[in-house]
């Protein structure tokens, strides 16, 4: 199939997939068949667009998916509500947090922010060391550092915020740092 035809077929399949999902999720009962078809069309559309034009094709195809969804959302925004729920009356005022809350919040901020960021940088550098050790191209290994820091840090920060208790938060960060330090110290940061 010529590249253009494959690209536009992909870009046509994707809105179709969104439409099928809209149909499926509006039903009272779950339809595994429609869900599979919808997700399959979305995946197939991306695949075709990617095969036709690489990353550019996937990016354009994703815009088609989001654009179609935006049309459905716009339509939903114009629909009259079936019922208007009264906003519940405010419950009694709860005493606001004291100095202890601020201290706890500050400590959590430090752990999820700067400390998690430092661990993320160490993780990215460790991944680079492993990549260089496995004879990855130097450019790929270096770009890996630039790409991993903004990915690993928010995930780590979220994991810290989800952990129950300060002990678990600190343990999680120390364990991650220890794990990523092994390849970093063993292999070093060779260019």
């Amino acid at each position, binding site marked *: 199939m010529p590249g253009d035809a494959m690209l536009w077929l992909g870009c046509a399949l994707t809105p179709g997939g969104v439409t099928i999902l809209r149909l499926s999720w509006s039903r009272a009962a779950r339809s595994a068949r429609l869900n599979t078809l919808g997700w399959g069309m979305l995946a197939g559309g991306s695949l075709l667009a990617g095969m036709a034009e690489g*990353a*550019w094709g996937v990016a354009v195809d994703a815009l088609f998916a989001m654009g179609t969804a935006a049309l*459905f*959302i716009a339509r939903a925004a114009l629909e009259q509500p079936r019922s*208007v729920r009264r906003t519940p009356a405010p419950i009694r005022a709860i005493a606001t947090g004291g100095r202890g809350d601020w201290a706890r919040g500050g400590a959590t901020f430090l752990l999820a922010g700067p400390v998690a960021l430092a661990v993320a940088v160490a993780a990215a550098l460790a991944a680079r060391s492993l990549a260089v050790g496995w004879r990855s*191209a130097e450019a790929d290994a*270096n770009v890996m550092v*630039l790409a991993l820091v903004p990915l690993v840090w928010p995930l780590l920060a979220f994991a810290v915020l989800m952990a129950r208790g300060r002990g678990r938060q600190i343990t999680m960060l120390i364990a991650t740092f220890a794990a990523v330090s092994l390849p970093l110290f063993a292999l070093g940061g060779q260019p």
Partner: protein
Amino acid sequence: MKPLFAKDTVRRGVAAHSAIGLICCALLYLICVTGTAIVLYEEWQRLEQPGAPEMQAIAPSAVDAAIANVVASEADREPTTHLFVHMPTDALPRTTVTTDTQAVHVDGKGAIVVPEENAWAEFLLALHYRLNLPPVWGMTLVGLFGAMIVALAVSGIVAHPRIFRDAFRLRARRRDDVATLDWHNRLAVWTLPFALAMALTGAMIGLFYISGSSLAQIAYGGDGDAALAPVFGAEPEADDTPAPLPRVAPVLRYMAREYPAVRVSYLILHDPGTRGQHIQIIGEHDRRLIFGEYYAFASDGTFRGTTGLADGTLGQQFAASIYNLHFGNYGGLPVMIAYILFGIALSAVVATGTFIWLDKQARKGRPRRTIRAGWWGITIGVPVAIVTTLIARLTWGNEAPFVAIFWIVTLAITAAAVHRSRRAGARGPASATPGFAP
């Protein structure tokens, strides 16, 4: 349908989502709004200076003439270390020569016509890139906030147990807290690929001072250029011995002959007027996310090769794709319109996120009138301040103090909203807490 996550996980997900959102909301909103406006960067430049000469193409000999004219105009000052020629493109059909000290538009024959005056577009770009702060601090801060969008996206998914079931449900006309919640969730879910692409690419650019300098420290003895050389290529050895300017017309003719499908967007003269001078071309490739490929030439016009941004390693192609993917300049007007719409949606997600938290606080008996009024002030103040700076540009001129105008207007609107809320609060609690009804 079975929820994706357990109730307790959802509860903690909501708490994490709220905590991150509250810390980041104001600057994140500013970054999203300015990012939406800057999609039209080239168009703003054309609006700022409608009289600048425009052309679809320029003859190679005219580029030689333009370079000679600009260098001659700088005979009384320190020689420039780099000279950039912006070639006419679809988005900005102008030829502009930029040196270390000036930027001028030239006509189709290479004659200097008028200095470049795009201070407002540059202000807007700087506001988005670095919040008008010094580059290291500003870009890093913006990068940190970009990464937090990733955290917000992940925590938002965990906090939303019926993410698929409710994916198309938008009860916008209820005009209550549910409407605000629906706007936030629906726009966030369906712009998730866009938000993640913007956040990751923006954070990669912004966090470079942290990730790149860490890489340079650990592997290249602190040499940042050496860390980037495998990706974007290295600069040849400099030789400051004076030499005549090179002719670039043969280089442009070579590009047209050997790479007819490549559109030259920039011609860069490194160390012009020295023996170490060399020429670099940035060539745009159709239907690619990469900003272009570097084509290197010696000063005598000999082709030295490409860097590999178009066909090198995966890492090189990935790195070269970040800029276009972030700013939406890879598919002409349709992609730009889509980016503007999704940018507005992302700004609305940030704005409504804080209103949801305020609504929740009000339901708990803590109306937080001042914060709500302040948030209204920021939500309205940022776009109004941007429009005010644009009006200043069109009426006052290129020299208008855009940074001062922007921050004064934003803070004034926010202060006015808070003041109004306090006055209304003194009259009665009901009027002091207007509900957010989009």
